[in-house]
């Protein structure tokens, strides 16, 4: 018990120190540093020793599941760290790829070809920025001569509530000649102007074509939160070319440790529920230190 308290305290102090250094590159240097790996390695060993010392009994089921679950998570994470590969790449439409370049420059052959053959996106009604002309600049075309009064989203009835500047129906902002069907700019009374903000995605979907080594074709639908699995690889939909829909950004990952991590998490969860929901009295004076 005392060694697990000591190592967890050190890990907490390490994490706090690391989180204070806020640039994303600093995160990688700290949280993937040899010191961090050593701390987690020591923690894993202490968990295993704790489990071994407690032994197996019905009373200790929750304890064992919890502690071994953490061991499984850390082992899975270690496998992923040393043996996993991940790459994020731009996939132009209808262009097959069988190789990916990793962050460290290495090129990995996937063993099959993958291409994006279709992409669809639906969007919410756009936000509009309301601009008010600065003194004496009522007819200027330059937004620098305007004051930005903030962004306005369409409300539940489809109109835009501009507060003290009135309300405008969404249909008035529609423009059938515009690519996305919405006006870029819309003049209001007294020189006020509405300027369309960046689009807000509601849903997007890509179709992947996978050609294996035997030239068999497989078509899979890929969405955010619904990755595609094939031959040990997992594909995730990241972003896309918002101007012309000419490319999609995918992340591809092959990580043999991920399954262990996920199973370990469920084990810790299950073990914690057993430990915390069974009847137990508050201890006075503490148990003997293990």
């Amino acid at each position, binding site marked *: 018990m005392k060694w697990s*308290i000591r190592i967890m305290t050190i890990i907490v102090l390490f*994490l706090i120190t690391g989180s204070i250094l806020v640039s994303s590159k600093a995160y990688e240097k700290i949280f993937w540093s040899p010191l961090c790996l050593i701390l987690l390695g020591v923690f894993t060993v202490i968990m295993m020793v704790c489990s071994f010392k407690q032994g197996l009994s019905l009373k200790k089921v929750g304890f064992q599941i919890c502690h071994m679950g953490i061991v499984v998570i850390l082992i899975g994470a270690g496998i992923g760290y040393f043996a996993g590969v991940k790459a994020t790449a731009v996939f132009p439409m209808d262009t097959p790829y069988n190789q990916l370049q990793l962050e460290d420059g290495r090129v990995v052959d996937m063993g099959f070809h993958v291409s994006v053959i279709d992409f669809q996106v639906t969007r919410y009604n756009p936000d509009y920025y309301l601009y008010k002309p600065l003194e004496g600049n009522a007819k200027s075309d330059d937004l620098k001569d305007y004051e930005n009064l903030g962004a306005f989203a369409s409300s539940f009835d489809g109109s835009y509530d501009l507060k003290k500047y009135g309300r405008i129906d969404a249909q008035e902002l529609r423009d059938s000649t515009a690519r996305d069907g919405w006006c870029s700019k819309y003049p209001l009374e007294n020189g006020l102007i509405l300027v369309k903000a960046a689009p807000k995605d509601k849903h997007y979907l890509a179709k992947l074509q996978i050609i294996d080594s035997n030239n068999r074709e497989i078509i899979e639908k890929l969405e955010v939160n619904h990755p595609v699995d094939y031959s040990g690889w997992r594909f995730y939909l990241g972003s896309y070319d918002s101007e012309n829909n000419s490319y999609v950004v995918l992340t591809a990952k092959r990580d043999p440790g991920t399954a262990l991590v996920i199973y370990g998490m469920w084990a810790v969860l299950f073990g914690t529920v057993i430990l915390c929901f069974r009847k137990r009295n508050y201890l006075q004076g*503490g148990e003997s230190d293990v």
Partner: protein
Amino acid sequence: MSDINLLVLLLIISSASLYLLSSIVIFMKKKLLGNILLAAGWVLGIMLFIENWILVGYPPFANMYHVLTFLSLCFLPLYIILALREKLNWLLPYFCIASMFPLIGVLFMERQVIWERPPALQSIWFVPHVLSYMISYALATVAFILAIASAIKADSAAREDFSKAIYHVLRLGFPFMTTGLFLGAVWAEEAWGNYWSWDTKETWSLITWLLYLLYFHSIRSREYKKWSKAFHICAFGALLVTFLMVNLLPQLGSILHSYTK
């Protein structure tokens, strides 16, 4: 101010006021009146939650306003569980006080009643992840309020009663915190292919979880039992950092959780 926003404001103020009144009345030993006021405050909170749900068209958990309005509703059902399981009926006024705080927070923020979910939030893990965390935060808040109340008690027997209550409250909340933490990782794996990316919010949620774990371990250790209160206080501090500061301080910006702004 539109009619909807005015109604929202009235519900928030009424609900928070009723929670505060109920705690005062219960401390004055007028239990029946206190229970009625508490129930009324909770019903107004439910009306606010339902209104938010209708306006956005899906369970309202995406932005801070939605999350805090739901958090205030968690306290009463959790009190009922603790009262039935651990016979901690005397905790009621502390749960009433805790119910009020999220609504006070909502009064001082921009209440984004309409929220359009980006694709990343359209996941089956969204509601369980946020819901688990809200339940655990509700219980952690009550435990902290009890710790403050315990600190001003001169009687050591009373302090011991408070310590036991804190232990049982946190013991109920910790599985929910664990669930929230791991469901977040499962979700991140499905959405971005990264179950853990050392995002600021993730790191601080792990720090919070570890500190509560340290509390439970130290309580059962002869050598470190005297540190259990310190671990508890630090854990709640970390919880506040995770829940509030990461969203409110731009320089601590969380990349993955930025859609909650």
